[in-house]
């Protein structure tokens, strides 16, 4: 682990260099302890795959004091903090997988040498972990996608990906909470609202997510828009 200054009011804590699902619980434990123990000094924290960005309030604290506050917290988070794989909230997200809304479903299947049915089964058979939130409000980066259907980002991003679109980029998957530009391969659409001003984000880093295939009728019944 290392703590590096990256700007005048933030430090980046590195927990490792490689994508490793075991890092997530340690990063989130550090985030929670920093929030509770250093409270008022902290403006924001951004947990990611292997790092935690901590933004502090220069009106209240400087770099040295922040590092002196963070070091003992990190020392208390050793390898033992890793939670077993099945810990974390489990959230089920229904998905209407169909070329009508899965704009790249056929292309993903063709690239993988699979049928569309196979792609759907393989995408919805895995229970994913939310590694990090980012890109847009409520957007969760999830892994790990079955290698057989992992598909690189599109060379030209779409200007407009519809809200609810479920995408794949390499071994990551995610749901676009609102309309936005995006380069992920879209294989279906989810009717669940992922972000609202009242509840904020449905997903949080550390959650587990299972996708369940639903029909066109169920999608519409659950408020999905075609």
């Amino acid at each position: 682990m290392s703590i590096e200054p990256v700007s005048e009011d933030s430090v980046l804590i590195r927990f490792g260099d490689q994508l490793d699902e075991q890092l997530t619980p340690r990063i989130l434990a550090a985030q929670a302890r920093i929030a509770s123990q250093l409270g008022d000094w902290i403006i924001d924290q951004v947990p990611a795959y292997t790092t935690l960005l901590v933004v502090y309030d220069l009106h209240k604290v400087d770099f040295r004091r922040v590092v002196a506050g963070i070091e003992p917290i990190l020392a208390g988070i050793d390898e033992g903090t890793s939670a077993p794989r099945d810990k974390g909230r489990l959230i089920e997200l229904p998905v209407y997988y169909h070329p009508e809304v899965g704009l790249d479903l056929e292309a993903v299947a063709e690239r993988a040498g699979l049928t569309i049915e196979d792609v759907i089964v393989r995408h919805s058979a895995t229970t994913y972990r939310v590694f990090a939130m980012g890109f847009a409000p409520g957007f969760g980066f999830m892994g790990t996608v079955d290698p057989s259907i992992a598909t690189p980002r599109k060379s030209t991003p779409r200007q407009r990906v519809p809200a609810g679109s479920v995408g794949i980029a390499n071994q990551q998957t995610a749901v676009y909470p609102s309309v936005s530009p995006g380069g992920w391969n879209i294989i279906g659409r989810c009717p669940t609202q992922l972000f609202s001003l009242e509840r904020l984000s449905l997903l949080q880093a550390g959650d587990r997510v299972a996708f369940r295939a639903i029909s066109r009728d169920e999608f519409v019944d659950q408020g999905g828009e075609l």
Partner: protein
Amino acid sequence: MSGLEVHDTGLRATLQDEGRRHGQHLGLAVGGAADLHAFRWANKLLDNPRTSACLEVLMGGFSAEATGTMSIAVTGAASRLFINDRRQSLWRTHTLHAGDTISLEPPSNGLLNYIAVPGGWQGNELCQSRSMTPREGLPGLTVIEPDQLIEATSSDVAPERHVPQPFLPDYAAPLTLNVIPGYQHTAFSHDARRTLTTRPYTVTQQIDRMGYRLSGAAIKAPDMTLLSEGIALGALQIPTDGQPIVLLNDRQTMGGYPKIGTVAALDCSRLCQRKPDTEVRFRFAELANVQCERVVFEAFFGRTEWADSRTLRWR
């Protein structure tokens, strides 16, 4: 409460304060006033708390009518300010009465104006902030719309005050941006770092609240795959084409391009008043020196008070 009935918003008008707190882990952008200097002065003229929301107007073209008696302060870009068709100065307080009209023409120098009112503007709050982030499309938190009524928090009438002359900025002055080495700094070659600090870069047309794209001598990015990580204000991202991007207030919370360092926050403030085709330069700076400049800047606004209409003294 008195307020403004907005007629025209120009290219973009938003409410901005110091930005959101504790929202980035949900993917929410920070937002916040892009030019901290002009923002702090607008609030200082009215003795507002430092977190008070100002109206941030891009490229003038803004006009509105007062619904009652109210004080305002206007700072920022060199835009011609009119109150009831009479030319007025920026960087000072004014008092409006019901029916008075206020308008800002497109600036001759700089890009952003800040309009403050006593106690700040009222608005929807998210994560302890009224900052609007147009790209996120959150209801009530995108932009100020024409015909919208925006109201002040307090009806106090402020005394006449002027920002003292030495504090007035020149947004056409040569600008060298201080860069704190950080992130993937050491993965960049010596040549790449030298290119950044010895060659001029030009502000392109691709500029907004998310970031400033610059163009100039290509900086060779290290050949590495990087997992996305949290992006600080001012992160200096070098994509594969070698053309630097300075990431600003409405940046995405995470990104996976190599970053050669981070531009000081007060230099981000200076940068976002620079128009396309302006030349800027970079230099590497010590973290301690950058923090020092920022702490002194904040202490000045926090620990001074008005002695008279044109003079401040330390408390």
